């Protein structure tokens, strides 16, 4: 009786991907810094994963596999963006980092400001350091999983994370000391 039916490839993929769609979207959101780009990247990543679904054997674990595809998709998109408009140019054009998860009106203004500064500082990091920080400090992923996603060893992950944290800390401290200073200056100083 089953010759006419089996669970389709798309249905099997959907059942797998739905477990991770939220975290993949959040990874893309923090990597890209805007909702539209995040939606595009996360969609593209899931489509790429679907096309490669036959080749997925499960050795790496679905989560690691999907995250790796999402990360690579973001890197590709960032490279394309680099060719069109630099981050400095975006800021000069009035670009504001994504405002997702901001506290509701009525909550502490300081907290809202802190989130804005974190978003800006995150976007000022090089993509490889940004990814490590997102996976560890935002998503609380264990080091061995981060290493598997980014195909690095754990030592490299830790050193990148330390550099990222140091930069973000310096940007936030300088923003606190001089609220009018722009992040571009901080980024310039970091370089």
């Amino acid at each position, binding site marked *: *009786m*089953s010759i*006419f*039916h089996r*669970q*389709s*490839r*798309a*249905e099997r*993929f*959907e*059942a*797998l*991907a*739905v*477990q991770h*769609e*939220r975290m993949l*979207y*959040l990874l893309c*959101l*923090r990597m890209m810094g805007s*909702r539209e780009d995040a*939606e595009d990247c*996360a*969609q593209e990543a*899931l*489509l790429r994963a*679907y*096309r490669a679904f036959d080749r997925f054997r499960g050795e790496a674990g679905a989560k690691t596999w999907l995250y790796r595809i999402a990360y690579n998709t973001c890197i590709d998109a960032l490279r394309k963006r680099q060719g069109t408009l630099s981050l400095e140019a975006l800021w000069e054009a009035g670009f504001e980092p994504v405002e*997702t*998860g901001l*506290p*509701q009106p009525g*909550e*502490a203004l*300081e*907290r809202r400001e*802190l*989130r804005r500064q*974190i978003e800006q500082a995150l976007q000022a990091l090089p993509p490889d350091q940004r990814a490590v920080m997102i996976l560890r*400090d*935002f*998503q*609380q992923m264990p080091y061995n999983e981060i290493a598997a996603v980014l195909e690095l060893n754990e030592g490299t992950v830790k050193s990148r994370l330390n550099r990222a944290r140091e930069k*973000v*800390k310096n940007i*936030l*401290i300088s923003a*606190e000391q001089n609220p009018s200073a722009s992040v571009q200056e901080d980024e310039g100083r970091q370089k």
Partner: protein
Amino acid sequence: MMDCRTFALLLDRPEGEWTAEERQQMEAHAAQCAECGALLAMRREMAAMDAETEVPAAFSSSWREKVYAEEKKMSRQGKLFPWKRAVAAVAAVAVLAIGTTASYLNGWGLQSAGKSADTSGYDGGYGAMNYAAESYDGSPALYSAKSASMTAAGADWDVPAEAAANNTREEKIIRTINMTIKTRQYEADYALIRKLTEENGGRVESLDVSGDGSAGSLRRASFVLRVPSERLDAFIAGAKGVGTVSAYSESSDDVSESYYDMQNRLQTQQVKMQRLTALMEKAEDVSDLIELENAVSETQYWIDYYTGQMNGVNSRVQDSYVNITLRELSSADAAETKTLSLGERIVHAVKASAETAGEVLQAMLIFLVAALPWIAVLAVITLVIRAVVRKRKAKRAAKTPEQGDA
């Protein structure tokens, strides 16, 4: 007293892994050291930012649509099953012959094969649901065991301290359901989902609808529903009667530990606030007052922060997320539905063939009507050419006897 180096080492670990003693020491150090305090605030904010960010419903539905569109594309290009086209051609002929005979012999009407077949066949579909849940989500038994304790979740929404004082530590479990339902009766099942949601005290948080119902653009509705957790099982039971469930997953996230951690920290900050307020009443020195005001502002920030976090958790515990994708089935899809009997599937296959034939005839008719002006022009040109040729022939015929006479 903890030093900055130890603080940094501990800060490297997720906060959920700290012991109560470590947390106390961390907070004590953060209160003393401005730089470490800022780092702690930053790390907490980073973790909270993701927790409080909602995924757009449009994204959830659009990637699914693209995946299914890709599947169709790959299927058309023969990438998925290269042998399928040849088999399909032979099978179509066989199904057409058998289906026509079967429908005559059994007198099955197409009407009876619709909704009742989808509903009665649910158990077969639910087999796939169990598979998905067990493969990816762990034991389904967990949910029923814990659901009873979830019913009163959120009772301490505004008075978390009271709940702690009473030592009634209810489990805080966030349940999320994802379902894909296929249906032949899209409009009726769409209305049924909305009705079920209302009946169970839930609400539609977002809805994304696409397709116009034609063969090339089947309809699809992606619901993001919020259903009270105490009514979630009743809602799921009701949803079982809607179409055929082709994919199902359920996740259950126990956030009790972090919730009650936050509650304790909130209580600490509330006690601190009371003390600071009492001190402010007694303070006479202006510099003391300024310092106390700063401390009050800082404490109020943490009270707001923890309250916001706890309200967010309570909201998710009290109202579970149910993501339902309702997909309209074509007759060809229905013919492949495992839950239908062989006869019903054959009838659907015949119907699909008839629909395809009808579509082809319609397309031909449309083409003919659209081509009418060109056909008319061509007819006129043909008539003119024919008239000219006839005239010339007649002239030639008239000349030939004249020449003969000469």
